[in-house]
């Protein structure tokens, strides 16, 4: 490719075009003006003007999660850039490939406390896979190339590029590198994976369980995971981000385990003698009290990130590598072991698991109940969509009800904020998902508290005529915190009741979208039908649910995983 004269800002835009960026989410401002000026004439990039930078970040996350591509967001210096931090931290916790681009004040002003100056690379350093403050315009093509490469490879994650305004205006001879050379980013597999040892554990286990995490999505290893699960024939449990890694409609799948997992999933993992953890990190929300986690289980832990191995739970056999590449090799070893020595008889184990499942299912006690139960609402929406929607959520009780009752049968159909637990994620994420997957049904399950954190971007969804449906399970509470207050703080509801504001139907109308409300059970189905039939822009549905309903079962923080309360 011949070199071409352009400015730093034009180089940023050109690099994004060459990386195949389709949508980017951002808002202009004083220092990032040069990039927006260059964007004005780009024929390939489509920019989504959000109303708050955090929304741009989450929308890029939703896009990335839904498509498997890198999400891109932009912000100006100072407050624009600090508004992005929550989304960047969210992407870091959930390993979402994200490139965040910010401008900063001109080089001579850096360090002088200039107007809208922030040490944003200093701020994002602990929540990015890597970040750059670009002080030489010649570095822009290389840094852009490295940024996209780092974001999507290995354990994916967010990267952040900060460019002072004067650097954006300087000229360079643009040449985009073909390859990336980063000395410290070579694969560091120091020993061959002990596949035979892992297979021996698989062969000798009589109470195995497969534990799937977000790494399956990150590695795009859905087919490989399915084959492995079929081969081992063990019960499959997932994390919140593992939902969709294996079809939850398959009888082998016990769904989510952990703090709000089902009793049967938790009993299964606690009583297992082998846990095969694939792309998972033994987060405190799934293990409960660590010292009592699956006391008799040996652990085969396969993950791309060596730093996750034995971080919290010691791996009997660690397998470091990319799931997509390594899992078929592991499967081949297991198959060999089965062929040579026969399969273990898992029927007694399955009998126990089935008994637990029969005795302790996830229940919805709607019968005789005057109010709409939130679980009923999730269930009915799911049924009306025939489970075919891409669902996204905010954070709180509604998120856990969605996780419990929204059965996911395909990959990339359940998109949520897991690690960081960021309220306000739902609407922005829905925007990104719908843009990334036009023509598909995108459903948000949100809470009244969560929705109010980012609702201003209804305007963005309307601008782009996105037919997203946001169902708000409205209990006029910061419900999850209220639940903890009821259970662990003696019903002292300190600052958790919310006033009945805003009127969500009128709010929707103010934003020129459809607003609906269901107060009684008899209204629920009709409202869902109307929402799903609405194709012309967003729809907000205010579902008034029983205010005191709690998410059950529940493992209290710091308790053993099998020591659950409620949900009998």
């Amino acid at each position, binding site marked *: 490719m011949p070199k071409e004269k352009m400015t730093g800002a034009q180089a940023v835009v050109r690099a994004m075009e060459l990386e195949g960026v389709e949508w980017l989410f951002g808002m202009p401002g004083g220092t990032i003006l040069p990039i927006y000026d260059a964007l004005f004439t780009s024929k390939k990039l489509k920019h989504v003007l959000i109303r708050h930078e955090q929304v741009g970040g989450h929308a890029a996350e939703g896009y990335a999660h839904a498509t498997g591509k890198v999400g891109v967001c932009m912000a100006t210096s100072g407050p624009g850039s600090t508004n992005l931090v929550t989304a960047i931290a969210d992407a870091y916790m959930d390993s979402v490939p994200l490139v965040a681009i910010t401008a900063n004040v001109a080089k001579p002003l850096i360090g002088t406390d200039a107007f809208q100056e922030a040490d944003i690379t*200093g701020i994002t350093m602990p929540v990015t896979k890597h970040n750059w403050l670009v002080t030489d315009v010649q570095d822009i093509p290389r840094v852009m190339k490295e940024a996209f490469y780092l974001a999507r490879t290995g354990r994916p994650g967010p990267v952040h590029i900060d460019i002072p305004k004067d650097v954006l205006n300087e000229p360079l001879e643009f040449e985009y590198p073909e390859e990336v050379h980063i000395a410290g980013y070579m694969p560091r597999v120091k020993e061959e994976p002990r596949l035979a040892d892992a297979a021996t554990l698989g062969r000798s286990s009589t109470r195995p369980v497969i534990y799937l995490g977000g790494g399956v999505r990150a590695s795009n290893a859905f087919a490989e995971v399915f084959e492995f699960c079929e081969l081992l024939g063990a019960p499959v449990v997932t994390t919140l981000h593992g939902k969709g890694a294996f079809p939850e409609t398959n009888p082998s799948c016990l769904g989510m385990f952990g703090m709000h997992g089902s009793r049967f999933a938790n009993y299964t993992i606690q009583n297992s003698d082998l846990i095969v953890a694939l792309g998972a990190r033994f987060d405190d929300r799934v293990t409960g009290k660590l010292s009592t986690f699956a006391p008799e289980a040996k652990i085969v832990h396969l993950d791309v990130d060596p730093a996750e191995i*034995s971080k919290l739970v010691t791996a009997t056999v660690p397998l470091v590598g990319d799931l997509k590449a390594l899992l078929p090799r592991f499967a081949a070893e297991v198959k060999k072991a089965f062929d040579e020595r026969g399969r273990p008889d898992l029927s007694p184990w399955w009998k126990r698991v089935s008994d637990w499942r029969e005795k302790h299912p996830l229940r919805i006690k709607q019968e005789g109940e005057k109010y709409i139960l939130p679980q009923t609402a999730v269930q009915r929406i799911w049924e009306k969509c025939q489970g075919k929607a891409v669902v996204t959520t905010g954070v709180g009780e509604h998120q856990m009800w969605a996780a419990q009752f929204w059965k996911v049968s395909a990959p990339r159909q359940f998109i949520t904020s897991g690690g960081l637990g960021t309220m306000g994620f739902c609407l922005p994420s829905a925007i990104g998902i719908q843009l990334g997957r036009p023509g598909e049904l995108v459903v948000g399950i949100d809470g009244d508290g969560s929705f109010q954190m980012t609702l201003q971007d209804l305007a963005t969804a309307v601008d782009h005529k996105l037919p997203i449906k946001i169902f708000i399970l409205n209990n006029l509470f910061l419900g999850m915190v209220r639940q903890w207050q009821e259970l662990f703080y003696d019903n002292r509801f300190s600052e958790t009741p919310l006033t009945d504001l805003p009127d969500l139907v009128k709010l929707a109308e103010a934003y020129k979208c459809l607003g609906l409300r269901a107060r009684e059970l008899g209204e629920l189905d009709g409202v869902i039908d109307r929402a799903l039939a609405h194709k012309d822009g967003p729809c907000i549905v205010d579902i008034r649910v029983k205010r005191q309903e709690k998410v059950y079962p529940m493992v209290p923080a710091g308790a053993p995983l099998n020591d659950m309360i409620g949900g009998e």
Partner: protein
Amino acid sequence: MVEKTEQMPNGNVHTLSLLVENKPAVLQRIAGLFARRGYNIESLAVGPTEHPERSRMTVVVRLTQKPVELVVRQLEKLIPVIEVRELAASDKIERELVLIKIKTPEKNHSELRAIADTYEAQIVDVSTDALMIEATGTAAKLDALEERLGVFGITELCRSGAIALERGFKTLAPPHLK
């Protein structure tokens, strides 16, 4: 000379040798990782290497709970970190530099010279009522020297933190960078 023991009652002390890219904010990345993961840095020394684009850091870390392998793997995740290795006590040469200022009347100077000689230390500054001693060696040797000089009253002291290299022909740079 007794090596500083690796097993300490309040945690285990490890010497980590890092080869890093000589770029802005690398020190901040590494120090930040130690801080946010809760690892205590005993000392950290950083300087240029035989290669202009790389720096070497020697970090002495005290760990109370986490195994050192976890720290190494976390450090290896940092993009500008090229290589990390724990240097075993038996397999490393470790040195530290100390400058010690003692405020003392001239009549004590000859005794101090004798002590300095014993520790292969040098007197690097002398005035009528003070002198400065420079010494290099292992941390344990410098500890001993410090203790010995304590009776004279140390008025100021500055230690560099340890630097270390592996014995023998081994180097830290991975094969593709040699």
